[in-house]
Structure formats: C-alpha cells, structure tokens
C-alpha cells in the first residue's frame, strides 16, 4: 500500500506546474518545457486542439442556422457575455455562458471569459503594442498605486523574444511612447486612414496615426512555419479559430510547441482549487485540483508554480489558498491581495464620413483593423485635469450603399447593385484607469460553485478621472475629425459596465516593497518565492496599450528567472 502511494505521488510530481493554458499560461508551458522542465499544465475547461476543434471556422454565412445572429433565448439567458461584440453565432462556443460560472457583482462588472485550452487567446482582437517607460514610470511620476519594480529596459529583450515567435506585424514608427518591436510587414493604411495620418502629423505635435500592430503572420518567418502556422489569409474570421494559424493563439502556437517537447502534460477539466503551502519547508509544494468530470480532488506537486488563470481567476486561486501561515491568501502579508484592480475604458466612440478619395476603395480585408493612435495626453508632462491618457483605434472603410427599397425586380436590382458611398471613419477610445484600493475582488463568504470553490465577488467601478478622460477623448477626436474635414460627426459615450473591455488587471500587483505589494520584480510572490504570477493580475498599473503582449513578455522573463534560480538551488 505504502509503495503504491509513493508511486502515485511520484506520478503526480512534476518540475513545474502551470495554472491556466491561455495567452500567458501557454507561454509559461512553452518556456518551461523549452528549458527542460517536466511541466504539468492544468486547465479548467475542455481541450481545444488547433484545426480539429474549430467547428465553425470554415462555415459560410448562410451555413449558420441564424446566419450569425444569436437566438433570443441564448441572449436572454446570457445578458453579460451577450454584451461582448464577438459573441456571435460563429464564436459563442468559446465564451463562458453566464449561468455556467456565476460570480457576485457587488457593482456591475461584465466579466468576459473563455474557459478552455487556449483561454481567451482564441477570441482576442490581436492588437499588440509594447508598453513604454511612460507606462512603467507612470505611478511614480503621477503619484498613484505603487512604483513598478521594473522599467521598459527590463522587458525590452523579452518583448523582442516573444514577438519573434508569436509574429507581430507593424511598422517601425519611431515613437518614444510606443516602442518599436521585431516586426513582420505591417498591414498598410488605406487612402483615408493615410490621409488622416498625414493630417494629424501636420496639424499636431506628438500625435500619430499608425498602422495597427497585430499578432498576424503577414509574412511568416521559418520559426512560424516550424510551428505549423502559415501566412495570414486576411479572412478576418479569427475568433472562430484560424485554420491557417494566421494569428497567434496558445492553441496554434505555444501549447503544441510545449507538447512537442515531450515534457508537457496537458490536463484539461482540472479546476485548480488552491495552491498547497508547506509551512515546514516555507514554500509551495503543489496544487489541489477538482477534476470536473469526476469531481474528485487530486493533488499535484512541483518545485515551481506559475499562476496564469487570467487576472481575476488568479486572484481567486490565491485568495482561496489559505494556511496557518497565510490565513488571508497565499503570499498576502501586505493585505493588498485582491485590491487595486483596474481595467481599460472603451466606453466612447466617434464616427463620421468623408467625401474625398472617391477614386479609391479597398479590396480584401485588413486583419489589423486599420490605424492606431498612441496616447498623446499627459505623456511628457501632466497637462490636463485628469491623470494618464487614452489610445484610440482609427479606421476608414468604404461600403456599398445598402438599398432595400422597393419590391420585386426593383428590390432585387437594388440589393445587387453595390454603389460605393462615401468613406466612413470611426474611432473608439482605449483609456487607462487608475488602480485604487476601493476597486477589489474578494471571495464570497457563503456561495460556492459546483466544485466547492467560493464565488468571486467583484467590486470595481469607474471614477471621476475616467469621466474627465472620456470627455477629453470626445473633444479631441471631434476637433481632429473636424479639422480633417470629416462630416456628420457623431460622438457617443455608452454606459457599459467595467469589464467589457476584457482588460481587467491587478490584485496581485508587483512592487519593490513587500508591505504594499504582492510580487517582486521577477513576478514571484515576495512571501513565497517559488510561486510566480505573470498574467494581468501582476500589473501595477494598466497603461492604455493592449495588455496581452506584455503578459507574454513577462511570462518568458519570469520563467528564465525561475529556471536559473532552480539551477542555483534557490528554488
């Protein structure tokens, strides 16, 4: 018997455990196995294999029962996820439905999730920008949150490292607040995007409209072909999973790479309930999971643990990992675990028309989505009545007129006749929000999920700074649109709840001082040195750039550190 147990423990012991198999967990798996560690990747959802498990990827619009529209019953049963723009008939199966995994909204918060191998990396809009020193120095300069323990220079080589493997298209634009990367060719701006770009350059100091940088293989390198991925075919059906591997997802890239090493065990249907802390050894020894099929609790053991369950679930796992040493959650000596959650604010947008460039249109589709306007407010100095700033998307498109007048042959003719109308232009804001102690997540004291794990309670809201920033976005964009000669300008602000922007961050923030932060400059718990957190939970502040590329870079950097610490015998 005793022997059997020892054998069983042995079979459940790995060098490393990764919690979560999405955007950041995929990178942890790839790097750990790449450095020779026997790695267990635990994923709460089902497996989604590249190509095999993309059921809608090659369907034509008419092959969907409702031609793309989500049935009312589904919409009504899922008010939260239904608010996400990408929740259509083609990709609904990659989103968590409201009832499946409830949470408690102390304040309205639209928590958009993907629970499966690949996580949200299957669904993302693939916008990728590096953060800059203006972001990492932000809290210290502007006096909020705590100082980041790292600067851009700490991350720069790791950005390069992950960009080369993931494949990022873009131009080298030479903008200090948006550092250049290792780029594949950019998707070019179209006539009106280019016109607006030149107009802005001429009329404003330090404002730019550039080709959006995105995780698409515009021109694959050998390393991408080696992953089994090919050139992006400009389908723009990416959220269904791409049969060409044209965009970066954990499913097409990092996870299969890790599996190919022979060192990776991928275990789907495994909800990590908590991390096991050994008080005698003074470190974490493994994790406890619930198998979602059998409801059985199983323990797995490893020397080092990477927590990559996506920001809020990472908070949940740590909060639920209690022991005598850490009664308030693993590593939570400071009491800040779960606090200083922040997000991005996408709640304003603007559209207009332009009647020039009638001789030009576009042909095909642009997977990058058009242009990107890097943050231009409060960059070099504080110059407005709000802190930080916003980036913006910008795109121009020319559509055929949509004439459904008449009946009979007239109607048929009208529908078939595609006369090109004016160019339309549009933009949406992407604002940075300020992490505050009053924006937090905790565990609900009584309610549990079907595996006996406490429900997450979310209490996150906008503030006055967000309102001022939004007003400024609308004013500045209206002015820029007006001076460019755009007509019929319509600026709107919507009243979405936080969360819908799907860039929630914080709760396990990095910092130099263990009294006010959870993680050190290597993304490991100050108080439990063999546990690393490298997803959005670790962000001290949120920048206004998209976050995922930064999670990837941080993950690769942290694995490098962890493995060198292991070699030194420190872990």
């Amino acid at each position, binding site marked *: 018997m005793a022997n059997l147990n020892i054998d069983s423990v042995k079979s459940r012991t790995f060098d490393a455990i990764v919690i979560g198999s999405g955007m950041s967990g995929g990178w942890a798996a790839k790097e750990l196995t790449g450095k020779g560690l026997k790695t267990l990747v635990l994923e709460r959802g089902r497996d989604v294999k590249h*190509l095999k498990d993309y*059921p809608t*990827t*090659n*369907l*034509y*619009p*008419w*092959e969907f*029962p*409702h*031609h*793309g*529209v*989500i*049935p*009312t*019953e589904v919409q*009504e049963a899922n008010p939260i996820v239904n608010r996400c723009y990408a929740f259509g008939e083609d990709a609904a199966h990659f989103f968590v439905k409201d009832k499946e995994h409830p949470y408690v909204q102390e304040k309205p918060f639209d928590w958009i999730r993907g629970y499966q191998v690949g996580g949200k990396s299957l669904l993302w809009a693939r916008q990728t920008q590096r953060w800059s020193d203006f972001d990492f120095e932000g809290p210290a300069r502007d006096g909020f949150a705590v100082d980041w323990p790292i600067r851009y220079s700490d991350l720069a080589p790791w950005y390069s490292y992950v960009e080369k493997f993931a494949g990022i298209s873009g131009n080298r634009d030479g903008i200090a607040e948006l550092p250049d990367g290792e780029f594949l060719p950019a*998707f*070019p*701006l*179209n*006539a009106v*995007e*280019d016109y607006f770009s030149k107009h802005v350059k001429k009329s404003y100091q330090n404002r730019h409209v550039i080709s959006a940088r995105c995780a698409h293989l515009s021109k694959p390198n050998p390393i991408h072909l080696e992953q*089994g*991925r*090919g050139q992006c*075919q*400009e*389908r723009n*059906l990416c959220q269904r999973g791409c*049969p*060409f*591997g044209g965009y970066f997802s954990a499913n097409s890239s990092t996870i299969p790479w890790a599996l190919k090493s022979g060192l990776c065990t991928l275990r789907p249907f495994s909800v990590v309930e908590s991390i096991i802390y050994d008080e005698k050894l003074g470190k974490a020894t493994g994790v406890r999971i619930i198998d979602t099929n059998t409801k059985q609790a199983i323990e797995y053991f490893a020397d080092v643990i990477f927590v990559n369950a996506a920001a809020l679930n990472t908070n949940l796992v740590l909060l639920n990992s209690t022991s005598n040493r850490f009664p308030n959650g693993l590593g939570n000596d400071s009491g800040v675990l779960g606090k200083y959650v922040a997000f991005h604010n996408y709640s304003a947008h603007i559209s207009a028309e332009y009647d020039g460039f*009638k*001789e*030009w*249109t*576009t*042909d*095909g*589709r*642009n*997977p990058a989505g058009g242009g990107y306007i890097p943050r231009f407010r409060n960059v070099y100095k504080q110059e407005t009545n709000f802190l930080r700033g916003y980036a913006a998307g910008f795109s121009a498109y020319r559509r*055929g007129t949509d004439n*459904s*007048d*008449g*009946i*009979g*042959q007239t*109607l*048929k003719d009208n*529908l*078939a*006749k*595609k006369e*090109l109308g004016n160019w339309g232009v549009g933009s949406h804001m992407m604002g940075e929000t300020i992490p505050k102690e009053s924006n937090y997540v905790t565990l609900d004291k009584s309610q549990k999920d079907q595996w006996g794990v406490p429900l997450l309670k979310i209490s996150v809201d906008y503030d006055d700074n967000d309102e001022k920033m939004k007003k400024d976005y609308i004013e500045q964009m209206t002015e820029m649109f007006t001076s460019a000669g755009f007509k019929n300008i319509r600026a709107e602000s919507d009243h979405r709840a936080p969360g819908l922007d799907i860039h929630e961050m914080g709760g396990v923030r990095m910092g130099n001082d263990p009294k006010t932060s959870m993680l050190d400059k290597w993304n490991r718990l100050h108080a439990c040195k063999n546990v690393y957190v490298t997803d959005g939970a670790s962000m001290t502040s949120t920048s206004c750039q998209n976050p995922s590329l930064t999670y990837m870079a941080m993950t690769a950097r942290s694995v490098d550190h962890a493995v060198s610490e292991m070699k030194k015998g420190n872990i």
Partner: protein
Amino acid sequence: MNRRIAIRNMALVLASAAVLPSCLNNDKGKPVVQLKHLKINADQENLVSNVAETILPKTNTPGAKELGINLFIFKMLDDCNTKQQQETFLAGLDEFDDAVKKQYGHSFNDCSQQERTAFISSMEKPKPENGKKDEPAKSAVFYNMVKGLTVFGYTTSQYFMTKQVVYELVPGRYNAWFPVKKQAV
C-alpha cells in the same frame, strides 16, 4: 500550416453543414414548419410566405419560396425575436389581413398576383395613421418585419452570396489602395 490542407478541412466541414428547418408534414390547417415558440396556423404561414414571395418574387432569378427564405423567416421569428416581438408580429399579421379583406373582400392568400403586388406596394410607403406619427400601425410593423427578414435572408443566402455578389471566405489579400475603376461591382 499548408494551405491545401486547410482547404481540404474546409471542404469536410462544409459537407456536414445543416441549413434550414425541414418541411415535415402537409396536413391542412397544420403549419408545415415546426416552431418552438410562435403559434401559427397554416393560413398564417401561407400568408407570410406569400408576402415574402410578393416582396421577392420568382422572376428570371429565384424568389423567396424557391430559396427557402419563407422558412428562414419563421426560424428567425421563432428563435431570434422576443415573445413581445412575436406577439406584435401576430397582431400585425391579423391587422394586415383585415386590411386586405377590407380592400379586396378576401384574404391575402386568395388575392390574385396583381392584387398582392398592389397591396404590398402600398405597404412600402406607410402613411402615418390618423396623424399619429410616432406609433406605426401594427400592420406596418408586421410588414417591416417580414420585409427586413426577407432582405436579410436573401442577402445572406447562398444564392445571393455566390451568384449576385461574390462572398469570399478566404480573400488571401488586402489591397489598402484599390482604384474604384477596377472594382468588379
């Protein structure tokens, strides 16, 4: 991944795709289409199909019925409308048919082709009812729902997207600057 393999995968998925609800039985009085929420009888079903066919008749190209758009309309009404919208639809249908009876002395289903076209043409330009501008007549709401779904079903149908315009699942190109002269449509 190599493109040819992807295209082969594509063909596999295509072959197994199901499209529209099937016509099950044809008993008189019983609707042909199986619906989950919307309760309609055979007359109402015919009326909607006839309205759709009048909006989009068979000419030298296929019409609503041939393309199964009438069935698509029912599927969308049944699955993608709220209970309230469905009630509005049914109330509007009755009002619509009453108006037809008032004008021609018989139901829309018994109208000649000419009568149908004339009546539908008059629906195309809805007059504000009794000066009440903001609340359109129920019959107009009904008509607009059928028209909207007919147009949506048609413009997203395989026929339209392959024969009238060409929808490409895989463009394989993005030309950011494309001269309008070269545009095929």
